[in-house]
């Protein structure tokens, strides 16, 4: 009798756990056709298993919409990956880098400085897009603690069902289709955008509002110090960049730039502000942006990548790996996949 009770209880428990597993798999956002940015973090791990990367890009939308690893490989034989995510704040970047170092040690880490303007957690939606896809490690635990807003609980990251149980009325066919397996949405972390929405001269003239205080928050600068230390401890060169886009919504102030120039100088880091180099890069704001100048489209990103690749090779000694047959085989597939997606996207447009 007692044995039967134990078996029944075990079966009930197993059924409950399996049910909860499938409920969670069904209800969490899939980030495929809607908000694919949410899939970027998770896609890194399979790529890191495939091959190593000499360059890791970290940062917000200004990295995953600006640098095309397939082009870096094609033109310079540079193996790279973009560990970017939507509104990736500097502590996200730190923990994503720490997480990546469990798998590989790049020669250079390229960090986009725009996010340094944020000193506090901003949004639950963006936290989710960056953190939920991380594999469990101390880095993920620390990322949650550093990032969560007042309304978020640590437990809801452990059991996302607690957060997403109310998505019942938002479910689409995609939630069922991609419940257990999702397609890859990025190309080595780069998210293709083929639309063209020109930045009108008037739009470009709209500058950011004046600020009362231009001092970059001490909280974000402290994490930049941590990124620097993490790179130093692992023999990695940290390179700072600012993407060439500069719209009223995400304005990069000269006063902020001066602080980064100063920081880079004091710490012996290279800093490239591509806003100043738009003409040399060849960016045409009537063709090279998909959203009126806020982000580059694929045409602009390919130009910037080719431009920066030369700097990575010549000024930072990032090697050409074309002779490495294993790596070449992997990248051959990745380059083919990128151009295939590009063709498909252009056809759909």
């Amino acid at each position, binding site marked *: 009798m007692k044995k039967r009770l134990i078996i029944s209880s075990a079966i009930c428990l197993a059924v409950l756990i399996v049910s909860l597993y499938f409920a969670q798999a069904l209800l969490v956002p899939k980030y495929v056709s809607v908000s694919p940015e949410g899939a970027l973090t998770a896609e890194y791990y399979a790529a890191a298993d495939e091959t190593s990367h000499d360059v890791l890009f970290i940062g*917000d939308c200004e990295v995953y919409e600006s640098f095309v690893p397939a082009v870096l490989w094609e033109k310079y034989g540079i193996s790279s990956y973009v560990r970017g995510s939507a509104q990736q704040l500097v502590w996200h970047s730190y923990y994503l880098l720490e997480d990546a170092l469990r798998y590989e040690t790049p020669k250079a880490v390229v960090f986009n400085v725009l996010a340094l303007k944020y000193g506090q957690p901003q949004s639950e939606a963006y936290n989710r*897009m960056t953190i939920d896809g991380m594999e469990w490690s101390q880095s993920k635990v620390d990322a949650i603690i550093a990032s969560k807003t007042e309304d978020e609980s640590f437990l809801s990251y452990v059991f996302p069902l607690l957060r997403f149980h109310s998505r019942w009325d938002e479910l689409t066919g995609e939630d069922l289709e991609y419940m257990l397996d999702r397609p890859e949405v990025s190309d080595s972390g780069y998210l293709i955008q083929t639309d063209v929405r020109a930045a009108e001269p008037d739009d470009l003239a709209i500058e950011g509002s*004046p600020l009362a205080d231009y001092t970059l928050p001490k909280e974000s600068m402290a994490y930049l110090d941590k990124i620097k230390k993490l790179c130093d401890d692992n023999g990695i060169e940290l390179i700072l960049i600012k993407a060439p886009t500069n719209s009223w919504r995400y304005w990069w102030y000269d006063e902020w730039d001066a602080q980064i120039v100063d920081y880079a100088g004091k710490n012996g880091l290279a800093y490239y502000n591509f806003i100043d180099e738009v003409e040399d890069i060849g960016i045409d704001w009537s063709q090279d942006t998909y959203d009126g100048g806020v982000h580059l489209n694929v045409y602009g990103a390919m130009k910037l990548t080719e431009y920066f690749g030369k700097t990575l090779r010549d000024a930072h000694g990032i090697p050409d790996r074309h002779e490495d047959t294993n790596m070449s085989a992997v990248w051959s597939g990745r380059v083919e996949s990128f151009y295939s997606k590009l063709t498909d996207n252009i056809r759909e447009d």
Partner: protein
Amino acid sequence: MKRIISILVLTLALALTLGVFCGCDGGNSDKKTYTFNADGIMLKIGAPASVVNSLGTPIAKDESASCGGIPGVDEVYVFSGYKVYTTPAKDGNVINKIEITDDSVKTPEGVAAGSTKAEVIKAMGEPTSESGTSLVYAGNGMKLTFIIRNDTVTSIQYVAE
């Protein structure tokens, strides 16, 4: 025993009464709502963005979607002397920022870019908070900030909190 119960009842009644009267404050309801007069049309933070249509044709307008597919677009409308920003809310876009950009436009209290710090305080009263570069007046769900450089107002911003 009866006395103790009476005292408890009285204490409870007093506490509830005080609670009701203290609670009726409603948090921010005593704070002023600073508004901006745009050629006779009063603009306030949190108002539906549709009110911007009554301001005539802007010199420039732009919109920007959020990264990550977050629904809705932020907008900016540039008029002579001021800009109006809107952001997505539950029932459509609302005004979330108004910025006076030059001395051709004044606040209803008579402050313009170029006013001195003393003139701001004379017109507006003592600020809620002050730093070396700004005077801030906390309003109902918003704040009005005067950015000051070299004792002169360089920018005036109504911003949602």
